[in-house]
């Protein structure tokens, strides 16, 4: 994905955030639906403008109007960035290498889990070199183009950085 947004992406982002701020202003659903329909109509009227200069001017005017009419305390979902429960459970997300530091008496409480864990760790050690080699081959010279990791290419290989993904903490640790 390149570093620039397309015109379509910008327009759609403006539409979504103006809808969200409209929802913050119009608390009651019927009033919100009325004004949301009006807003949709305003966007739809200029949907088929082919001239990019005119379209960009309309977008700029739309962004200015959004800035003037935005809500000072927009509604943010609790788990989204800026919400009240964002990163609340981050302190319970302990990395998995802490399990290596458990006392043997504590490890003896879960013998089958830790036995299996030794096998998984051995597998991770073996496949680590192969994953790194695959990533080094597949990354272009001036840096990766996307954040997505490639899948495993050969039979019997594991996808790169699989251990990091498999041992990630749960979304809600409790």
């Amino acid at each position: 994905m390149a570093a620039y947004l397309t015109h379509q992406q910008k327009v759609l982002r403006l539409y979504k955030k103006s809808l969200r701020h409209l929802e913050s202003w119009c608390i009651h659903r019927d009033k919100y639906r009325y004004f949301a329909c009006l807003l949709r109509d305003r966007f739809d009227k200029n949907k088929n403008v082919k001239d990019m200069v005119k379209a960009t001017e309309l977008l700029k005017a739309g962004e200015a109007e959004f800035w003037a009419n935005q809500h000072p305390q927009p509604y943010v979902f609790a788990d989204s960035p800026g919400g009240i429960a964002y990163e609340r459970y981050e302190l319970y997300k302990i990395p998995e290498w802490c399990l290596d530091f458990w006392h043997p008496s504590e490890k003896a409480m879960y013998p089958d889990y830790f036995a299996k864990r030794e096998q998984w760790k051995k597998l991770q050690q073996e496949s680590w070199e192969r994953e790194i080699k695959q990533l080094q081959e597949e990354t272009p010279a001036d840096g990766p183009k996307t954040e997505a990791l490639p899948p495993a290419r050969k039979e019997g290989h594991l996808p790169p950085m699989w251990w990091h993904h498999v041992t990630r903490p749960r979304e809600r640790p409790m």
Partner: protein
Amino acid sequence: MDLPLVLNIFMLLTLTTLITPIIFPLLSNNLKNTPTIITDTVKTSFLISLIPMTIHIHSGMESLTTLWEWKFIMNFKIPLSFKIDFYSLTFFPIALFVSWSILQFATWYMASDPYITKFFTYLLLFLIAMLILIIANNLFVLFIGWEGVGIMSFLLISWWHGRAEANTAALQAVLYNRVGDVGLILCMAWLAYTTNSWEIQQFPSPSQTTTLPLLGLILAATGKSAQFGLHPWLPAAMEGPTPVSALLHSSTMVVAGIFLLIRTHPLFTNNQTALTLCLCLGALSTLFAATCALTQNDIKKIIAFSTSSQLGLMMVTIGLNLPQLAFLHISTHAFFKAMLFLCSGSIIHSLNGEQDIRKMGGLQKMLPTTTSCLTIGNLALMGTPFLAGFYSKDQIIENLNTSYLNTWALLLTLLATSFTAVYTMRMTMLVQAGFVRIPPLTPVNENNPAVTSPITRLALGSITAGFFITSYVLPPKTPPMTMPLSIKITALVVTALGIVLALELSKMTQTLILTKQTPLYNFSVSLGYFNPLVHRLSTTNMLAKGQNIASHLVDLSWFKLLGPEGLANLQLMAAKTATTMHSGLIKAYLGSFALSILIILTSTY
């Protein structure tokens, strides 16, 4: 029957019962704490504390206990003394009742937390520190309790310390309280200097007290009780879990500042400057907080600003020279404010973490008990006749109206009372009434008795507490008995106007007119622009001044100009003037000889 001994024993037994869950796990590995044990301990403590309160009500017995004396230096001794008087005897059962209800609620609210026992231990430590503050007879023990509640507030606000805003809020609480502590330490230093003791009985008479220690005490109360100027920490403290907000930041910790002013009231009585400062500061705080609460959308922030507003009202009462009335308002306020927070906690958990009132609605049918108690709490907050809030709030406004003090403070307080009605009605309409706007898939549930019984217990307290306290306790000063009808019903009229205004405004929001930002709305929503201004300007100022002092004043001036460089400059100047005279001409030298001989000859005469 040696009543003072019985009184002392039961009060100390109350405190000791509370300390047992802290001490016992340290003594033996088998005695582990659970949340239920801690809740039952607080319940037992509450029942024990009812006995000395009953003794006091029926016999008026008060006592003063000294447990130990720290023989600090020769003539300055710090006793560990406890004053068991009306204030501590009444506040102990109230604080313990409210804490018991909150702890029982927290067994449900924090049930999914892995460190729930640590949470309960923190709450218990806070309660012990608060009770030490209440029962203290000298400022040293009070300071121990004061700092204790500050530290526990920090630990509890940052309970979910993975969240950056929680850490910032906890730091805000600590820093603002610290600024207030400077005032308390100033007063303690002045008392140690003039009277060599920190005991309340040894306070100098009001005529001997200068205004300086009183200003220190008012600064301490401003910091701890979130008056205007040191207020931002209280809304930020809503980052903590709801039981923390209910216990600390509504009923108990924030009243510690007002309680300090009540305890040290003998120093204030004649000092008109200090009293006027209290009055105006309180009036400004109550109006500012009520203005900010009008446009908030987070239910906990609305209740936090409502607490801030009521604290301003308590400060106004102190300014009217009525500490007992302020204490009555503290007691009644504890009940309904804790209940409002518990109801909001029940709503938040039922809606799966949703705190924004724009996404709540029509909850009356889904959560009947919670919303009924929310309504009772809101009515008590507004000062509805014969509920708990009425007995204290109406008396305060009557006294303010009939006194000959500051009219400006009176107008601000009346406006704030009206705003209280407005934001309370707004909260009620948006949370309980109307159509449902909640997100789908919500575990709406109030079947658990751990939720309903604390809330209903506190509702009972909200309805009856004011009546009971005023019927058993005589007012020490004569309240104003005669006043015109218009003065008598001012509070009621103003509240009714507020309710009507809120109903009209909510009808207006349902018409198809799109609201936009206006300057007044922006002022209210951004909390008066106070936070960014003060947080950035004061720190940049101080740091810039410090840098100036370090680099320009110390480095350049003291070390260079007044030291070697300045001396070198003077020498250079003298050398330059002298070199012009070394011209090599004999006439000049002969002239200087003649001048010197002339001076010597004329000076010997």
